[in-house]
């Protein structure tokens, strides 16, 4: 394994996150950020506080597990792209610094999401 890159780990999660983000992120943005604001009462109703609103959306554990997975994968996907984009913009940072900063931030977001969803 000497000299072998460990980039496959990042790349494969990036790829998985890319598919997940492609499928789920547009509709998530629509539901959380646009539908309610546009005055669609069914959407704002579903996001209302309490058991009849967002509580009902997240009542079932599998839903929370899938949502957590989507968020974590999308976070790593974004981290990987941001890291490579910075490199392609000729940002001269030590590789280890970029790796820790990008995937580290994604890991923090993933862990916080898991905690919030587990305690929901």
């Amino acid at each position, binding site marked *: 394994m000497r000299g072998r890159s460990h980039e496959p780990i990042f790349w494969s999660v990036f790829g998985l996150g890319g598919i997940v983000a492609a499928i789920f992120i*547009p509709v998530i943005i629509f539901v959380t950020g646009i539908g309610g*604001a546009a005055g669609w*009462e069914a*959407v704002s109703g579903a996001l209302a506080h309490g058991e009849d609103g967002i509580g009902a*959306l997240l009542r079932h554990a599998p839903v929370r597990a899938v949502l957590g997975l989507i968020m974590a994968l999308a976070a790593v996907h974004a981290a990987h792209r941001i890291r490579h*984009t910075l490199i392609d913009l000729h940002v001269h940072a030590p590789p280890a610094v970029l790796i820790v900063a990008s995937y580290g931030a994604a890991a923090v977001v993933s862990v916080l999401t898991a905690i*919030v969803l587990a305690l929901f």
Partner: protein
Amino acid sequence: MDGEVLTQPTFRSLGWTWWTRRPSYLLVFLRETSSVFIAVQVVLVLVLLHKAGQPAADYQAYLDFLWNPGMVVFHVVSIAFALLHTYTWFNLMPQTVAIRIRGRRIPGLLLVAPQFGGWAVVTGLIIAWVWWVGAG
């Protein structure tokens, strides 16, 4: 002649502004930029989930922030970038996955179309589900 090297090579780089050189580069740069919007949206949803477990007033204050006109503009820009990601991701799949049947590569459309189909179905189901919960 006596082994003296006259050559003093000068390196010329495409440069960090490569993405301004051509529309095709710019599209790739925008594609990559979608990641910034996806990252911010993931954080916004994380805060939303956190606030949902807080008292109603706190949660409502966050919704008011999330749905103020300035943020709505940001969401619209975000969804445009997210859709650019979706579009480019599905379309680039045939270059990454070369499936051969009897020696021939299957047409790209056979890989691309099912992805868009699946995306439409999932999006429709989620909106219907949210609708059903919100109206019920």
